[in-house]
């Protein structure tokens, strides 16, 4: 009889433990569950711990209580100015009403698909009714930033005064003021979508724009604009350099001419003065006896020039006075 008792005992133990195990379930932190009995929602558990249910009859459907993320595909949307941009948004949401969630979408996949529709259309309406600057910028800080060292010039910055720099480099442009800005736009998108999501037991926490890009053709033209802007600035710098160099060279030439002509003038003055004084010396001396000067000068001159001539004398010269007559002619 002992054997049979053992067998019955084991079977009872096994059955009890089996039933026991099936009547317990654990909800971990970060989870919530609903208990469905025969197609009807019987219980909702939103806190963690060991829970009891009717074995086999009750079905436990678990959902996360964590913040979940929604990630849609980037959409190509027109702004109010009809410029096409790619808007990539993400959202965070939670299942706050598991009962409604189960009744409406039941699975995360279905919920994501529902959110796709809701959020995409909300993004589309808001973006297309606003100018692009409201979606890109968040504040008017762009007009308040002081631009001082935008262009790092060389060491002698005294050449690059801020006024001429701002003219060259267009550093003083001001931008249209925005009214809403990106955060407010995101809030608008959120508010629109939030109206619908409670139907699914979902609370949308936020919708943020992760990235905005131009559509491809627009990107090309923006690139071209950027390149053109830069070349204009580069050109302005180079022209300014050419101009300043020309100024220096002009100044240099002017001064060179001034220096040289001044030197010439003074040298001539000095020479002229010297010539005059020399002439005075000569005339002063020679005028003491002009006749004797004429005689003496001629003598000196003959001594200079005549040796070079082939000479043929006539006896008519004064030199021969005593030649034919010892008392002179």
């Amino acid at each position, binding site marked *: 009889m002992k054997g049979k008792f053992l067998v019955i005992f084991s079977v009872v133990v096994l059955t009890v433990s089996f039933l026991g195990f099936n009547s317990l379930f654990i909800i971990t932190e970060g989870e919530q569950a609903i208990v469905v009995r025969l197609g009807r929602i019987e219980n909702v558990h939103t806190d963690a711990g060991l829970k009891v249910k009717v074995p086999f009859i009750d079905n436990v459907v678990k959902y996360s209580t964590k913040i979940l993320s929604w990630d849609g595909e980037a959409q190509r949307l027109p702004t109010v100015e009809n410029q096409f941009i790619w808007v990539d948004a993400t959202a965070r949401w939670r299942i706050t009403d598991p009962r409604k969630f189960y009744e409406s979408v039941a699975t995360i996949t279905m919920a994501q698909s529902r959110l796709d529709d809701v959020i995409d259309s909300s993004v589309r309406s808001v973006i297309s009714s606003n100018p692009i600057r409201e979606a890109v910028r968040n504040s008017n800080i762009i007009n308040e930033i002081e631009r001082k060292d935008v262009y790092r010039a060389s060491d002698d910055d005294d050449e690059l005064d801020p006024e001429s720099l701002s003219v060259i480099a267009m550093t003083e442009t001001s931008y249209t003021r925005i009214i809403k800005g*990106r955060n407010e736009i995101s809030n608008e998108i959120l508010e629109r979508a939030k109206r619908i999501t409670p139907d699914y037991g979902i609370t949308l926490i936020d919708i943020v724009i992760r*990235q905005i890009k131009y559509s491809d053709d627009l990107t090309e033209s923006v690139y071209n604009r950027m390149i053109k802007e830069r070349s204009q600035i580069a050109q302005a710098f180079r022209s300014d350099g050419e101009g300043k*160099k020309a100024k220096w060279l002009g100044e240099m030439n002017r*001064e060179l001419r001034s220096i040289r002509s001044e030197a010439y003038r003074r040298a001539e003055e000095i020479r002229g003065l010297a010539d005059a004084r020399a002439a005075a010396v000569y005339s002063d001396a020679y005028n003491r006896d002009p006749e004797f000067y004429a*005689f003496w000068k001629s003598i000196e001159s003959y001594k200079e020039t005549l040796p070079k001539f082939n000479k043929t004398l006539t006896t008519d010269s004064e030199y021969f006075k005593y030649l034919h007559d010892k008392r002179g002619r």
Partner: protein
Amino acid sequence: MSDFKMPKGFTVKPFMLVIAVVILLLLTGVFMSIFIVEPREQGVILRFGKFDRIVEPGLNFKIPFGIETSHIVPTQFVLKEEFGFRTVRAGNGRSVYSPSQFTDESSMLTGDLNIVDVEWIIQYRITDPLLWLFRVDNQTKAIRDISQSIVNLLVGDRAILDVIGSERTAIEIAGQDMMNELFDRYNLGIRVTTLQLQNIVPPKGSVQNAFEDVNKAIQDRSRLINEGKQAYNEQIPRAKGEAEAFIREAEGYAVERLNKAEGDVARFLSVLTEYRRSPDVTRTRLYYEMFEEIFGDEKSGDLIDKNLKNFVPFKTVGGN
């Protein structure tokens, strides 16, 4: 340890099996209840799924067989996320980066509607392991999404040159604050310790070249101005020197001229004094001295008598 030898005639009784199973279960239980928490980590213990306690580094125990579960969280590590680029191999001085572009993350619009490529990293630490584990699903994705959207917003609020230049620090500070605010709101249980912008450049290709050309143009401008200055500084002093020399030369001429004049005149004046003393004698002497000087060297010469038509050979008086 010696081999377990079955003694002869040993039969396995049912209750021995039960004892063996019980011992096995006990051993398994002991093994399953021990776990180690590494330094710089913390462990979160759930009992029946509900939070029970946090355990520190070292040897720890939990109730086995799934009653208590342990979840390890690296709380003292500084964790990093990269955006716009990826480090392939971190090195001591030089890290190797992936050559691919990550323009989905890096390409952004600026406030003046230009396009710029931004690379950045964030560093964060898990400050509350319980929150980290159980409040947010796919924590890394949430961190990355938020970080991207915040940097996108901050860059979009500023002009391209400010983003590249003077506003970097402002963006880093504002970004870090905004991220921490949002993550606190989500109860993510982390703290962002750094937002660091890395390379910020205009889009590669002709746009970047155009930006670089502006820098070149600035240098060109400096170079041109220096050329002008240099030419000036070279030529002007030199010309001044030359001018000085020119004037000195004239002065030299002046002195020379005057000296010559006075020299010439001196000679004349001394002869004049002599002439005044004895005019006829001086005159005659000078005249005949001239003739001697001019004709003294003459080897042959012709003398023509004024009354004759023929040449008369010049002979010294007394000769034939």
